[in-house]
């Protein structure tokens, strides 16, 4: 057990509201009639379907392959029939649709043949990464970045610390702490495999001190496995957003991740306990990632708790299983109250990144129109990234995006602390999200216009070249014509002379 060595700036002490969903063990959600599986449930390129409508699939069968480097595969969460591959609404703040594979389940839940690995030490790190990629594993903390990439230290780096982020600092969410409580051994299996793949010198499991049950469960599991005695558990003070990757690294190791940098730059790799568990299932049991633990909680939920839910399960099915006061098509929050976003639509599916479905928040303040910024500076005091939210807000609002960027807009982790403390109720994070997507859009447009310029210039060059070639050809033809004319003209007098000669000869003969 180790204690935190440092601290991060800012942050908030928030009411946790976690006990509501930790009263019951993890339940398995019943299999829905239809599963809707978006081809993109991760950061990077969307997966490409390898099944056709009408195909029968088995549980765990690959239905889409990874495309490009930053991508992972997708699997059938249960057995059934592919009934459509089409655009369906996805759980995204835009409310837009994207390509999905729709499976009609048969209720049999028949597994395909699994290939467990008895001793992962027989595999190379590369083979483990391949298994993790083929198993479709992404970071289950909520961002959904393909995990196999984060299991590759790369050629220029070596990994000092593998940090398991069990902080779970956001109010209401309890899926990681319940997983640590119930499946500590599985998590340790995964950690062992990850450490082997990364060749990490030390492993630290960080847990906030408001989860004593999870801490003791992990400690017990560790104590039962003497070969893992060098794995450390760090109990860290409960303060939002200590579970932010950069914040956690600062608290646990005292090191700071550079702006625009990655934890790997300072020799640290962070993974979520849920991801570690998924890695263990994939390697030890040959099971791809087809389900996750989802916290369903909130004031309007009757049976709040954690549910092991197959991907593609309509969120409305999950909510009716938990009995909520929610009316059809009423919005709910995916994620926590601080960083989550509101979604509406009964057909939206549970995806790999859905850690929590929140219906009804305690002591919610009535929505008010924001008042002008009074420059109190409270937002800067609570910012865990040491930014100046009021300045970035100012420039984002005035659409001076370059200046907002100079104020390190992209270091903002959108934790929502500034929103929470703002006395004028300005939706600061909304402005930052707006500015970020505008800047990314400008960047895309610029690239597109550069491409258009290049293509236009190449075209002009080509037309010019063709014109010159044509002229040249014409000139050549002209020259050839003249030459042949000249030759003909030369020949004619010669022939005339010849005839004269002939005549003279003839005359002479006569």
């Amino acid at each position, binding site marked *: 057990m180790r204690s935190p060595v440092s601290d991060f700036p800012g942050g908030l002490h928030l009411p946790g509201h976690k006990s509501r969903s930790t009263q019951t063990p993890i339940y398995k959600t019943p299999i829905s009639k239809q599963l809707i599986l978006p081809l*993109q449930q991760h950061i990077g390129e969307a997966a490409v379907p390898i099944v056709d409508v009408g195909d029968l699939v088995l549980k765990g069968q690959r239905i889409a392959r990874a495309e490009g480097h930053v991508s992972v595969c997708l699997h059938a969460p249960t057995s059934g029939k592919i009934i459509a591959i089409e655009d369906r609404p996805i759980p*995204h703040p*835009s409310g837009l649709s994207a390509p999905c594979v729709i499976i009609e389940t048969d209720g049999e839940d028949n597994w395909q043949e699994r290939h467990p690995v008895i001793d992962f030490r027989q595999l190379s790190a590369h083979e483990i990464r391949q298994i993790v990629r083929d198993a479709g594993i992404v970071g289950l903390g909520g961002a959904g970045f393909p995990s196999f990439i984060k299991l590759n230290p790369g050629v220029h780096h070596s990994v000092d610390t593998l940090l398991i982020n069990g902080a779970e600092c956001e109010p209401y969410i309890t899926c990681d702490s319940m997983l640590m409580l119930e499946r500590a051994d599985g998590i340790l299996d995964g950690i062992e495999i990850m450490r082997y793949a990364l060749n990490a010198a030390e492993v630290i499991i960080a847990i906030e001190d408001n989860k004593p049950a999870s801490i003791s469960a992990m400690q017990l599991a560790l104590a039962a496995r003497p070969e893992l005695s060098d794995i450390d558990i760090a109990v860290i003070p409960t303060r939002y957003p200590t579970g932010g990757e950069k914040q956690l690294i600062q608290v646990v190791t005292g090191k700071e991740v550079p702006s625009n940098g990655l934890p790997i730059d300072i020799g640290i790799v962070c993974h979520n306990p849920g991801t570690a568990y998924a890695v263990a299932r994939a390697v030890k049991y040959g099971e791809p990632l087809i389900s996750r633990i989802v916290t369903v909680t909130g004031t309007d939920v009757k049976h709040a708790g954690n549910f092991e839910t197959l991907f593609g399960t309509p969120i409305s099915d999950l909510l009716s299983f938990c009995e909520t006061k929610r009316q059809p098509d009423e919005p709910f929050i995916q994620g926590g109250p601080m960083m989550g976003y509101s979604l509406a639509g009964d057909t939206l599916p549970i995806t790999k990144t859905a850690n929590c479905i929140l219906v009804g928040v305690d002591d919610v303040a009535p929505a008010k129109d924001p008042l002008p910024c009074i420059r109190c500076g409270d937002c800067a005091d609570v910012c865990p990234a040491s930014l100046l939210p009021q300045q970035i807000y100012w420039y984002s609002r005035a659409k001076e995006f370059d200046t907002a960027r100079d104020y390190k807009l992209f270091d903002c982790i959108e934790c929502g602390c500034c929103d929470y403390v703002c006395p004028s109720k300005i939706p600061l994070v*909304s402005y930052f999200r*707006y500015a970020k997507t505008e800047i990314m859009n400008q960047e895309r447009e610029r690239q597109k216009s*550069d*491409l258009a*310029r290049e293509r*236009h*210039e190449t075209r002009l060059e080509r037309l010019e070249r063709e014109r010159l070639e044509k002229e040249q050809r014409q000139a050549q033809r002209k020259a050839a014509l003249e030459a042949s004319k000249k030759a003909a003209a030369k020949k004619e007098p010669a022939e005339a002379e010849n005839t004269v000669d002939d005549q003279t000869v003839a005359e002479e003969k006569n």
Partner: protein
Amino acid sequence: MLTAIIAITLLALVLGVILGFASIRFKVEGDPIVDQIDKILPQTQCGQCSFAGCRPYAEAIAAGEVDINRCPPGGEATIQALADLLDVDPKPLDEDCGVEKPKMLAVIDEDRCIGCTLCIQACPVDAILGAAKHMHTVIANECTGCELCVEPCPVDCIDMVETQPDPHTWRWPDPSHVNLQRSKN
């Protein structure tokens, strides 16, 4: 007195040589103004400004021959950026050139296309693929939405459609507009 004059002169000579050397050795190629203007223009090459493409328009602006408000695809943002660059007052878009429209994409109705290659010749960025008497298609990623291919098509099979946002290119709405709408309601 003499020493002082000699000393100062020598110093001036030495420093002069250093400065002269530095101005040649570390010469910074200034970004010519035409390139800077051309960078701001959206490169649709649509010719709505009455010039044969973005570059000629940029050259004309740099020469001070035309106004900066003749680019409908760029719209207000481009006019503002040009005004900032050239340090002149922004003006509303010249309506003789056209109106600001959302981004468009040319789509060929492949059933009606007769393979005449006229659109291929019209496309300023070579974004249409096809051969004589074979069906043509638009490379969506490379289409600038200039509409130059619509006019020459003899069977009228090219439609301009508004590009739809997907989750990748979707942008968060401007919160100040959202709030305005809410207070209006």
